[in-house]
């Protein structure tokens, strides 16, 4: 099944890539619309848009998911429900496909809800309590976005149609109060921006191939893609709030990744940080740049997760980076790919991340914004390199920390081939994309200091990240002196607690009180059990009347007869 899925998806990727190329060079797009029902001059239509954006994104999604499905043939080998897993992942890709090709809010909701549902089912794939909690957190966080989109659909009823792409050039969308804010809210939940960030690392409970797909090109990018599509209509306060929250997300995730020891969670936090970057540049109004970074990021993030999966798969199932180290000697191919992904993530020149990230940073520096966000971006850029080099120290170059008896190796070709493919993508993808998406280069004009700032913070971050984590005997863990601060920073600014306990505490306690007073209290006593015991008492008295001889029954009849007849005479 993994082979056929891979072939099918790669075929889809090829077809959509070719149509992307044709559409880019000939400059046209297809728009298919099917009117389902029309009432009150408001038409409900199923719309498919095939322009260069959707085709390119579709080709990336199907390429990456094809690779991931092939990879899961090795990763999930021996799993009892492997077919179910494959179908679920295919359902995921299908939902994402619907979301990509629909410029209509109603049909977007189909894909959007499909993503939410399948992501829940995939997060709880391994059936334990942790997965169940993570899945519930994921589903409910995403549910906020679903509700926002549903309300937006209600609001868009005003416009006589839900194909927002028609109205992007006019001011109609921003005229409807709250619509833009709601759509932004929906995108922020799906892309895990700051108040809703907690679900993203929690969703790491899913099998690694799912994480590779979710965090590269499908679930979390859906929000960014929605805003890219909605782009021209964004404006005003929602743009500003988005800028602020996205910068904070970027910084928070970058910082948090430096204190995390779970391999997958580090990569998840780096995804969060990169989503912040996309959102930042999106809120500045550069939609194509955000789209560019989205695609380039998809390539190397899928690669990173695949390598991480390979490492955990072979390193005895543990995801703790303190249990790894020196892996380059044991599994050179996986670790080389991981390094490649990591370097691309840092924006090392001429790898995939460089073209998009460097461009984003420079465009950001050269445009009009506030200083707070400026420093957050600069710091986050440095922090990305910092946690990357920390990861490199822990897994690649440090001391061998695995179990003394192990069989970690790169021997599974089903897992290594997709890595090699995506590794090649991570090397050349950025350059190709920049040539294809931008017909003419951006003009960036910066003073020398700003131009070198990105390079400077990256070098500094890399140095700090590597050196601060060096560790041998008799070193002291001086970070323990600031334990409270560390706890705050390392736990995503308490967001997992805030979005689980704080939102449920009041409702659960109130519910418990109501339950105690009502369902398990008065209502039970005077309701169900009271009725039951009352009826049983009545039944007992009836039984008392019943336990008599036939003579008594007959006398009773005669008494009734005389009584009723007598009253009538």
């Amino acid at each position, binding site marked *: 099944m993994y082979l056929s899925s891979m072939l099918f998806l790669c075929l889809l990727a090829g077809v959509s890539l070719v149509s992307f190329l044709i559409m880019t060079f000939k400059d046209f797009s297809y728009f298919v619309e099917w009117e389902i029902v029309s009432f009150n001059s408001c038409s409900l239509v199923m719309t498919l848009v095939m322009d260069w954006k959707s085709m390119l994104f579709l080709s990336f999604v199907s390429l990456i998911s094809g690779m991931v499905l092939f990879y899961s043939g090795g990763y999930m080998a021996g799993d009892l429900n492997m077919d179910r897993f494959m179908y679920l992942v295919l359902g995921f890709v299908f939902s994402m496909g619907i979301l990509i090709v629909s410029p209509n809010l109603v049909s977007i909701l189909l894909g959007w809800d499909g993503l939410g549902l399948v992501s829940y089912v995939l997060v709880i794939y391994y059936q334990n309590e942790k997965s169940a909690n993570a899945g519930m957190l994921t589903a409910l966080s995403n549910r906020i976005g679903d509700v926002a989109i549903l309300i937006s659909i209600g609001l868009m009823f005003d416009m006589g149609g839900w194909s927002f792409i028609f109205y992007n050039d006019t001011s109609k969308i921003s005229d409807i109060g709250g619509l833009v804010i709601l759509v932004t809210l929906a995108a922020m939940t799906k892309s895990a921006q700051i108040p809703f960030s907690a679900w993203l690392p929690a969703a790491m409970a899913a099998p690694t191939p799912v994480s590779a797909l979710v965090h590269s090109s499908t679930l979390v990018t859906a929000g960014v893609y929605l805003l890219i599509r909605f782009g021209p209509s964004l404006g005003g306060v929602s743009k500003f709030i988005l800028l602020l929250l996205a910068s904070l997300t970027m910084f928070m995730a970058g910082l948090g990744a430096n204190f995390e020891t779970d391999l997958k969670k580090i990569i998840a936090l780096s995804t969060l940080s990169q989503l912040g970057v996309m959102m930042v540049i999106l809120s500045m109004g550069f939609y194509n740049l955000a789209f560019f970074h989205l695609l380039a990021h998809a390539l190397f993030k899928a690669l990173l997760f695949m390598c991480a999966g390979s490492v955990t798969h072979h390193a005895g199932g543990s995801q703790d980076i303190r249990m790894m180290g020196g892996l380059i000697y044991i599994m050179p191919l996986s670790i080389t790919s991981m390094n490649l992904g990591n370097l691309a993530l840092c924006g090392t020149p001429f790898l995939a991340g460089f073209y998009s990230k460097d461009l984003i940073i420079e465009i950001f520096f050269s445009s009009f914004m506030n200083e707070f966000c400026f420093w957050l971006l600069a710091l986050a850029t440095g922090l990305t390199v910092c946690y990357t080099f920390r990861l490199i120290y822990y897994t690649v170059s440090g001391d061998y920390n695995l179990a003394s008896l192990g069989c970690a190796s790169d021997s599974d070709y089903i897992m290594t081939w997709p890595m090699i493919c995506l590794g090649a993508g991570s090397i050349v993808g950025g350059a190709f994309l920049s040539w294809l998406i931008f017909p003419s280069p951006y003009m960036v004009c910066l003073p020398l200091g700003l131009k070198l700032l990105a390079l400077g913070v990256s070098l500094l971050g890399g140095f700090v990240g590597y050196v601060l984590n060096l560790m041998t005997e008799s070193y002291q863990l001086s970070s323990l002196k600031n334990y409270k601060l560390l706890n705050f920073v390392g736990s995503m600014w308490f967001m997992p607690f805030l979005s689980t306990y704080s939102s449920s505490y009041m409702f659960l306690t109130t519910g418990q009180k109501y339950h105690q007073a009502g369902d398990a209290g008065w209502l039970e006593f005077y309701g169900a059990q009271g009725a039951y015991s009352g*009826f*049983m008492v009545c*039944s007992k008295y009836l039984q008392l009347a019943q336990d008599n001889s036939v003579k008594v*029954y007959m006398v*009773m*009849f005669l008494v*009734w*007869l005389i009584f009723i*007849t007598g009253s*009538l005479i």
Partner: protein
Amino acid sequence: MLVLKPHHGLFLITLLAGLLIAVSSSSWFILWMGLELNLMSFIPLLSSSENRYPAESALKYFLIQALGSSSLLMASTLSLFMSKAWTSIVLLSLLLKTGAAPFHFWLPPVMQGIDWFQCFILMTIQKIAPISMMSLILTNLSSLTLISSSILSATVGALGGLNQTLTRKILAYSSINHMGWMLAAISVNEQMWAIYFMAYSLITLSVVSIFSSKQIFHINQVLTTNIYPQTTKMMLFLSLLSLGGVPPLLGFFPKMMMIQEFMSSQLSLLWLSILLASALLTLFFYLRVANSSLMLSSLKTKYSLQTNLSNFILSSSLLNMSPALYPLLLLISY
């Protein structure tokens, strides 16, 4: 386990003849005669030489029915000079004969002593004649008695059944409860009563045939006896749910029609709500029969005789699913 003896055929024929005479009679005397014939041929059906319980039941049944018949005969002569009261006497005696509350006391003890086949006749066929006679004497005066009896029957049937652990008594109280519905049905119109009675008879047939084939007399036996094929279990519970009036099944539809008739013919809603509440209570004790064996435990005794259901029992149980075919009525009507 249906055991028919040669004389059963004869007495069944005379029983039905008595019923027909009573239903089609034009004078109270002929009616009395038909009822007597019916009674006299039911007594030999009840009694058995191998067991003393049926004999006791037959005696009780005879005494009660004789009292009812004699007061009916008395009323028919009184009709000459007591123009108002005699209908009440007739009504009361007919209520006694059908076993409607407050004259229901004889029904559970009589049913407890006889076999399932006789129980079935007692619960269904023996009710046709008195109830159809009742519909003839409904006046403003007697209908008050009828309403009271209907409400009492529904309540007593529902409450009395709560304490029972014997299946025959449960069905007896269920019968009393349904009497309440049928008395309500005859005050709507006769057709309504016919529909209700037909549905009730079919459902009772399906319940009784399973109880009879597995010889279940106590609700413990539902759990522990050899209800081996799972289909039997399913059929039993389907029938019980249908008896309680659970929506997709046959038992629901006469009740729904009753509700509609009550609404359209401006009858008392209090009456209807008491009937409905009592139906809920009966559903509770039907479910109690089913619940332990359906939900909690599936005991399979390996040494039990593995008897499959006969086609008759299977088809009578499947009758409860007949509402599934109702959409086919569209084919006829269009």
